[in-house]
């Protein structure tokens, strides 16, 4: 089983398209992403990718089973697909709470900043969540604290992609 990422927009590059329903304006988002990513040049574009968390998780487990490596989903699948088209992922930033309303940005490979974000920022703000969202947040924090690199759990990713 593989995840089905949805490419939702180009942020930098020749055709910038951003969301209309985010609390941040497109200009704000560009500056925040520009800060998060180190390099921004004409050969680079940034893609916003909405991930299928369940699919990613199953895909991740799939990679642990002998002979299932090629069934891996999520970020690995995107990287492989892009490389077949002469593109290379040079930067990855995860965002929370969602790709449509991004407010927090952190490196996908850094577990500690992710945990700090969950415990310091999101947990005290759980009052605004509905019942299922509260249960999900608690479950998410529990699972995340048990894992060393939970980068397949992210729902929203921004990828910096460059021509090879």
């Amino acid at each position, binding site marked *: 089983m593989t995840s089905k990422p949805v490419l939702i927009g180009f942020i930098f590059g020749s055709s910038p398209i951003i969301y209309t329903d985010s*609390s941040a304006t497109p200009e704000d988002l560009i500056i925040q992403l520009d*800060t998060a990513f180190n390099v921004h040049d004409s050969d680079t574009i940034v893609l916003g990718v909405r991930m299928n968390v369940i699919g990613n998780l199953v895909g991740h487990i799939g990679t642990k089973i002998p002979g299932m490596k090629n069934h891996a989903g999520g970020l690995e699948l995107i990287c492989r697909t892009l490389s077949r088209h002469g593109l290379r992922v040079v930067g990855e930033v995860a965002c929370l709470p969602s790709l449509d309303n991004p407010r927090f940005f952190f490196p996908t490979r850094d577990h500690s900043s992710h945990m700090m974000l969950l415990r310091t920022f999101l947990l005290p703000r759980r009052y605004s969540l509905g019942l299922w969202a509260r249960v999900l947040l608690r479950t998410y924090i529990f699972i995340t604290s048990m894992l060393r690199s939970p980068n397949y759990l992210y729902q929203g990713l921004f990828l910096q992609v460059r021509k090879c």
Partner: protein
Amino acid sequence: MLRKLIPAVERKFGWKLDHNRYLVVGNAFSKFSVFLFTSGNRPPVCIAKAACNEAATEKCRNEYLVLKFLIGSPIKNIRSAEPMGTLHVSDQLFFLQEYVESDLLLGDLPLHRRAFIGRQFSIAVDHLSQIYDSTKKPQSVDSRSYSKCFQHGDFWLGNLGVRRNHLVLYDLEFSRILGTPLYDLLHFGIYYFRVLSNIGTYRITRPTTDSSSRSTDHRTLTLQADDIHTVFGSVNRYSEVMYAAIFAYISNCHIDHADALSLLLRFIGRDRSVENLPDNWESGIEPTYQIWRKKWSGS
């Protein structure tokens, strides 16, 4: 930009920062904060605040100046971040400040709107009375019973933390060194109610490609006329706690009732931009004030 910001901070302070670790937080009013870390699983050492436009830069600058003021004139049991200088990186101005870890008061908020905690109002009153005593100017305003004093400007649960019996103040961009008393307590009370009204409004929805139905955030962040009516203009359990806090505060600060009522009316009518405020909004406030005044002075 981060590739340049981290070495610039390292050069300024002689630190060794973790280049692969950061957190960028988009704040309200086109500002953002970058949290910087040293190696190891430690809290951030520094926050670099920046803005996306000139108006937001002014807010960041104001916060920085207020932080300098608070370091120069410390208030008992009140803590804020230490300002650590400014940096220009790739045409972007960053205001650096210390990261202060605390338990956010927002985390104590009840999960049901009918079960709000009056204890948090007592904490607010105690600390705001302390702030008034420590920062009030010697001369009173136009022969009234109060003086100008430090005003946080956005004193609500999300900007307040507790650390070792100290109240930690965050987000001081709306602060005024010469503000008015009572403003912060009224702001605290009205936004406490707004936060209670937003309990459970952030929902999970199925991802969709239709941008019009994509948002999961259904909170109302601006003040409504109904909020003013419930908190200040009608007799109910919430207004009882609010007015008890007001009376405790003015008693601690030796402000008389006529001045307190005029500050309350000014807060609603002039200082806050309330949506759909009816023309006769004042008519409900004064009777409610007097009802609770009679009750609290009689008990």
